[in-house]
């Protein structure tokens, strides 16, 4: 199959959906040039650095029948517009009794590893998990990027797409033919029988590396990529853990209050799954520190293959 990069996959998704539906519009502080060329400066509009205004404008556009796609660039810039995400986009469908639909895609890049320091190295998905009303996608491959983004653009709700900075130039297979990926269906990245590893975004690849390495040591690791955090495919995760009896969650966000806590909880609170759990779930996350700038420290805080392997062994103890 043809290979494209994660970034190209996103561009393709946008191009295809913009061709498909002329109610789509694009807002960003810097326009994707190809898209702008094809669809014009009106529909693919450059915004000033006014995130509250254009994040909110997307809501007004959506409530007026358009389907905006907003690229915020780095996730950290969401915070200057946070009210528009949390109090407006997420709540108004419900709060207005479903009178109107708000189909909006907000794209943000997440993750660390580039020595960008604390402000620019954040993976804040868990906070949105606690805010019902926005769907959350977290593509880990070019294939998923394209398929999930297309589904997101067609969804009639606000969708937040968390895209990992480190993956931009990573290549992967993606068919030329049209496809979409349903929300709420995890991808089984690798089958295994000893331990279930649930990993997010870039950590899917780290987990797979660890799994390959562990295979040599005779440990069979199953790797699950939830693909979407809201809705979360609880059934697949629980089913896998019920089989393996062990859970490791890998996420590069800070540990406390992160998505890993939710995933661990979803597993343990299910009494059928709990009964089959043979060891304590293990979280492999960044420690609770702002991400440091200097490479040795940054490398230290980000989960890597070694930490995942150690966690799997811990779970096997």
């Amino acid at each position: 199959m043809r290979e494209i990069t994660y970034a190209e996959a996103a561009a393709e998704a946008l191009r295809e959906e913009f061709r498909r539906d002329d109610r789509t519009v694009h807002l960003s502080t810097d326009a994707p040039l190809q898209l702008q060329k094809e669809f014009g400066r009106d529909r693919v509009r450059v915004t000033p650095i006014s995130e509250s205004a254009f994040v909110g404008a997307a809501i007004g556009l959506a409530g007026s029948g358009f389907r905006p796609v907003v690229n915020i660039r780095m996730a950290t810039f969401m915070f200057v517009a946070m009210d528009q995400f949390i109090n407006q986009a997420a709540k108004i469908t419900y709060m207005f009794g479903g009178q109107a639909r708000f189909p909006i895609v907000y794209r943000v890049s997440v993750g660390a590893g580039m020595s960008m320091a604390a402000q620019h190295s954040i993976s804040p998905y868990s906070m949105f998990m606690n805010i019902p009303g926005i769907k959350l996608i977290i593509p880990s491959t070019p294939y998923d990027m394209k398929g999930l983004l297309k589904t997101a653009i067609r969804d009639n709700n606000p969708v937040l797409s968390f895209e990992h900075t480190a993956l931009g130039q990573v290549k992967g297979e993606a068919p030329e033919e049209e496809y979409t990926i349903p929300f709420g269906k995890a991808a089984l990245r690798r089958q295994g029988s000893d331990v279930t590893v649930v990993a997010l975004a870039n950590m899917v690849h780290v987990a797979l590396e660890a799994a390959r390495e562990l295979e040599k040591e005779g440990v069979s690791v199953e790797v699950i990529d939830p693909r979407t955090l809201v809705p979360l495919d609880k059934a697949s995760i629980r089913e896998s853990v019920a089989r393996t009896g062990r859970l490791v969650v890998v996420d590069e966000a800070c540990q406390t209050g992160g998505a890993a806590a939710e995933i661990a909880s979803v597993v343990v609170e299910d009494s059928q799954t709990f009964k089959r759990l043979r060891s304590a779930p293990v979280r492999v996350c960044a420690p609770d520190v702002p991400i440091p700038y200097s490479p040795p420290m940054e490398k230290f805080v980000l989960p890597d293959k070694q930490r995942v392997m150690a966690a799997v062994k811990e779970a096997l103890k």
Partner: protein
Amino acid sequence: MPIEPQDLIEMYKTMLTIRRFEERAAREYEERHIPGIVHSYIGQEATATGVCANLRLDDRIVSTHRGHGHCIAKGADLKRMMAELYGRKTGYCKGKGGSMHIADFSVGMLGANGIVGAGLPIAVGAAMAAQLEGGDRVAAVFFGDGACQEGTFHESLNLASIWKLPIVFVCENNGYGVNTPAEYSIPVKDIADRAAAYAMPGVVVDGNDAAAVYEAAGRVVKAARAGKGPALLECKTYRWRRHAESKAFAELRPTGEIEAWKSRCPIASLERRLLEEGMATGQELADIDSQVLALIEEAVRFAEASPWPAPEDALEGVYSV
């Protein structure tokens, strides 16, 4: 365009509807038929009325926490409004929103909003939609003097200006944000002066004079329809009641000031004009009041008779299909 007697009478009726609705809402709140919080629009009726009288059904507005007047002026249904305040299933939001979140997309009312300043960006989006649609629709957004110190005010006016969006920013300067005087929070004489920072016209109007609001808003709405871009319209007005219908909100404004503004009642002054200029008789106006009161009564009865949402309804409607 000179203002027609019929327009004035229509506005009179709208203002009176707002007044009576708010009086009744206050009473129902007091009697605990309405829970939560209710911010009364009494005293400010001329603003919503004068602005919305220039708008078509397909124009869009965005409102604030003090939103009943905007709803009514844009043509929302009193029954469904009152039912929403009552928290009933038949309310605009099926009882999920309450006073601060009434919306009626079918009449272009894109929602009240409990967050100060949050409506402006949303309205900018509605105006962008109008622009992309290519017709001559406009958007209008209401907000208080207090909201003018929020960042969203600045970002929204700027965005509307650089894109020449068809939108009117209607600042209802009622002199206070809760109990903080506008003069404390705002260093310039008129909020409308800030329009210059966005290269858009800034207009000050007596927000208690429906005809004046109508005319001033008419000019900027017309310009917006013609593709000439946005404007900031500052309506100087006053709220008669405390910040919200709850004793938890102290009333710290000087009594004399409140009384002085009451003597400048927007409804009474339009009434005087209608009578003085012979556009309506006392009887005709009394008839309007009776009609209005009947409508309000009907709204209350509708609300009372409406079913409560089932508790489990809470679980539905987080996402659209």
